[in-house]
């Protein structure tokens, strides 16, 4: 199997605080890879490093063997890394149609086209239709995003990332805050992601993690603590302790 995304001795410091320490993560092509860890373990920092929102203090990031450490966020998207956000980062004033059309246009390279009307190359429209249908957003597609129910916003959050047709998709707690009865929608969507897309999932919800992941990495205090198959992680005493310690607190 080839490695799709790899970090080499990745490190990020905020002043004196080490948020990511010497992380060597390998995500294989087409993987269903989960990254878990207690609160404050540095999971979101790692995602921000991978997507270029933050610059690492040291270390390198490789995408399909290409060094992307110094690339800007939008250039990484062009190379095929897309992400979702733990807390919705949507365009409150745009409708789902517009939001998805935006991402699709950008991917098809007509984002800087200032002459054609959005959606005029029918390729864009076709893709938008496909995504909105896939993500069950058709019924709310003309509402302003700001007034969508939370579950729908969450779906849109993932839909936008998928609209970039990524090779690597980073999902940052996709089910966070979604009420129990809508959670199955998210699970369903995640499960139905195309097989050739490499997925790195950050999640607290262990049901979702164990249902989805074929491989799990555990991050504690910015350090890659342990890796293994779901079965191995489930059996691992140290992991259990880390988590028990956390749940004991809160």
């Amino acid at each position, binding site marked *: 199997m080839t490695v799709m995304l790899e970090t080499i001795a990745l490190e990020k410091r905020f002043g004196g605080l080490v948020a990511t320490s010497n992380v060597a993560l390998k995500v294989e092509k087409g993987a269903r890879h989960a990254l878990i860890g207690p609160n404050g373990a540095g999971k979101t920092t790692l995602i921000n490093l991978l997507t270029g929102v933050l610059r690492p203090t040291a270390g390198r990031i490789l995408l399909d063997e290409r060094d992307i450490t110094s690339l800007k*966020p939008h250039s990484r998207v062009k190379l095929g890394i897309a992400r979702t956000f733990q807390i919705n*980062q949507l365009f*409150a004033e745009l409708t789902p149609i517009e939001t998805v*059309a935006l991402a699709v246009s*950008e991917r098809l390279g007509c984002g800087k*086209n200032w002459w054609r009307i959005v959606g005029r190359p029918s390729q864009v*429209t076709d893709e938008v*239709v496909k995504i909105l249908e896939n993500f069950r957003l*058709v019924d709310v597609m003309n509402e302003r995003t700001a007034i969508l129910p939370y579950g729908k916003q969450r779906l849109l959050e993932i839909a*936008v990332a998928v609209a970039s047709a990524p090779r690597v998709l980073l999902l940052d707690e996709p089910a966070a805050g979604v009420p129990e009865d809508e959670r199955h929608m998210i699970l369903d969507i995640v499960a139905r992601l195309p097989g050739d897309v490499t997925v790195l999932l950050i999640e607290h919800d262990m049901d979702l993690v164990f249902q989805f992941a074929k491989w799990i990495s555990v991050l504690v205090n910015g350090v890659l603590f342990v890796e293994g198959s779901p079965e191995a992680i489930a059996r691992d005493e140290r992991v259990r302790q880390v988590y028990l310690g956390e749940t004991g607190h809160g």
Partner: protein
Amino acid sequence: MSQQPPGEEIARRLVARASWQPLEVLFWAAALASIYVLPGRHLILTEIAILGLFALSLDLILGYAGIVSLGQAAFFGFGAYAAGLLAKYDLVTEPLLALIVSGVAAALVGFVTSFLVLRGSDLTRIMVTLGVALVLREIANRYAWLTGGADGLQGVEIKPLFGLYRFDMFGHTAFCYALGVLIVLFLLARRIVHSPFGLSLQSIKGNPVRAAAVGIPVNGRLVAIYTIAAGYAGVAGALLTQTTAFTSLSVLDFERSADLLLVLIIGGTGYLYGGLIGAILFKLMQDYLAALTPQYWPFWIGLLLVAIVLIGRERIMSWTKPIRALARRLDWRRSTTAVAVEGQRP
């Protein structure tokens, strides 16, 4: 609506964003009609058209890309002086050509200074843009041998438009010219904001972090629209010079940028017509009040501004709701055009 298959509905919705509303058609029909209906008011109408175009330039960056600027006068003034100098030294004598050259020159200045506004909060941007305008004003003041300094640029003579239409004293040529330029640039702006590029600007305004995560080069897009808007402001400034055959330091004044912001806020941002409507309201209001009380008109303008805020712009907008609702009902193409558009597709 829901009986249509979703695919068609989505395609229709995307295209419908850019379709012409009846109120819009009415607006421009009225504007064109004013050429014949209000021949005695062409002078102030010319000013309104110029101010409207200028406000449009601010709307492009503020209403669509979220860049607050208190320094659009920098580009307005640059365009104004460029047009003045081109005419004075007979460099480009055809007004329309000179207008384009001036606009491009102002856009270049916009491009160079755009890098200053990429960082920082609204307040920082306000002050940096303001600073740029003030520095330009000082430069224009300093190099009096070129610009005339505080006395204004004298001796500007504007040749007839296309070599045919002289700029008459009644301002008829000037108004037709200014209105024509406004319409062309408005259509262009309308096209721009409904394009994927325009949509990406709106997304940047809404959420720059996510915009970058979708693959949008945020800074690049902001530089682009800032440059375009500077060009618009430059054309507006050049129009002022060409229609008055004169320009002075006041084109670079802080007050000009401040008034512009007022005009746009009064009219509302982010739907292109805000600047135009604001320009009409502001100018007419000012003209009316200044005729009524030449000395104390600022008091009444101030009172109106305060009242607008205290009552709430949303509430005032909501008073126009019945009109807008009526207009929507009158939209005869509401369901038919979409089908027609769809039908043309292979």
